[in-house]
């Protein structure tokens, strides 16, 4: 606590230079006067008295400097002096100063942007379990290294699969979502049944798809099996009970099972923005 108080006083001393200078000089002068007076009383000649007093003080400038250093923050003072000097130099060479500033800011901005991008894309691990074991499998043709895969080819691959612990497929989709502010487009993905198990994502609410569900649902006439990202769920949760009731009354000869599952926003966001296979 004492140290903080002392620091604040010294900081204050940075801005009261003239007054401090006067006070220091006055106090050291009075000290010398008292000492010289004592020396004269002791019988020393005047020159000798003054010399002895100065020597005992350790030298006039040294004493003054030590006193002054304690009353401000010498480090900060030096920094301020350097800054003032730099400002003066810039004033003399405005063209150089402007060039330097522009080049530095361009460099710093570019470096920050690149780092932010690399950090987000490459350095931050994906929010899946064991991301090092996730691989993307593509069909390749003469024209395209990574070309589209037909669903039935995928089914064959899955049947013949011996290399991978699990093999799932996804493709991009888009929907119009009714929110309180109107209708807005949302990104989506159409995925195979074990997709979430492969990525080891568990939903916050509800459950993920089950194998074979797409076949049974088609026969029941149900087409709406969805897993929502948390942000989307929050925006539209008001509508869900309402639309479920609506569907039931309008299409009452079909059972429209609107399963509601929610996974965390970040995981689904990564899903949505990835390139379709």
């Amino acid at each position, binding site marked *: 606590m*004492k*140290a903080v*108080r*002392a620091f604040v*006083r*010294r900081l204050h001393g940075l801005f009261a230079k003239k007054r401090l200078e006067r006070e220091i000089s*006055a*106090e*050291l002068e*009075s*000290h010398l*006067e*008292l*000492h010289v*007076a*004592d020396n004269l009383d002791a019988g020393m000649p005047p020159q000798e008295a003054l010399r002895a007093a100065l020597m*005992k*003080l*350790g*030298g006039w400038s*040294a*004493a003054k400097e*030590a*006193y002054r*250093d*304690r*009353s401000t923050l010498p480090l900060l003072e030096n920094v301020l002096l350097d800054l003032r000097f730099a400002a003066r130099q810039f004033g003399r060479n405005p063209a150089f100063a402007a060039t330097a500033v522009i080049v530095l800011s361009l460099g710093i901005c570019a470096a920050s942007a690149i780092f932010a991008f690399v950090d987000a894309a490459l350095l931050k691990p994906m929010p899946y379990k064991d991301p090092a074991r996730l691989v993307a499998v593509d069909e390749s043709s003469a024209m395209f290294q990574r070309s589209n895969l037909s669903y039935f080819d995928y089914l064959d691959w899955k049947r013949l699969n011996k290399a991978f612990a699990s093999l799932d497929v996804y493709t991009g989709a888009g929907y119009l979502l009714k929110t309180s502010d109107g209708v807005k487009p949302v990104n989506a993905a159409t995925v195979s049944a074990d997709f979430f198990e492969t990525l080891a994502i568990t939903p916050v609410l509800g459950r993920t798809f089950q194998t074979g569900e797409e076949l049974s649902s088609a026969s029941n006439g149900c087409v709406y099996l969805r897993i929502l990202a948390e942000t989307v769920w929050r925006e539209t949760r008001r509508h869900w009970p309402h639309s479920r009731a609506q569907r039931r009354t309008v299409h009452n000869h079909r059972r429209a099972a609107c399963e509601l599952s929610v996974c965390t926003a970040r995981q689904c966001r990564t899903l949505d923005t990835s390139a379709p296979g």
Partner: protein
Amino acid sequence: MYEKADVWQGTLALMVLKTLDSLGPQHGYGIARRIEQTSGQLLSLNYGTLYPALLKLEQEGAIESEWGVSENNRKAKFYRLTRAGRKQLAREQRSWEQATAIIGRFLAPKGEAV
């Protein structure tokens, strides 16, 4: 005979506080003379180092200062102890006495029970 020793930084603060406690308000020169006197002339004090130490004590709130007139009608800056300074003095005096007691036991002549 004893050599004149140099004064340590930390103990200088303690000596200043004790001097002000004994003498009452005093100017820098008076404090310096008194310290030398109390030590039996065994301490060689560089008067120039006293003023930064006084300033440090003032910044920490242990002493306060004001300009006054000395015995021989000269202008001088007088220092006196504050309440916080008194507490600090008591505290440091206690810890010094403890330290010297402990060391004294180690340095006690052989044959005495420890």
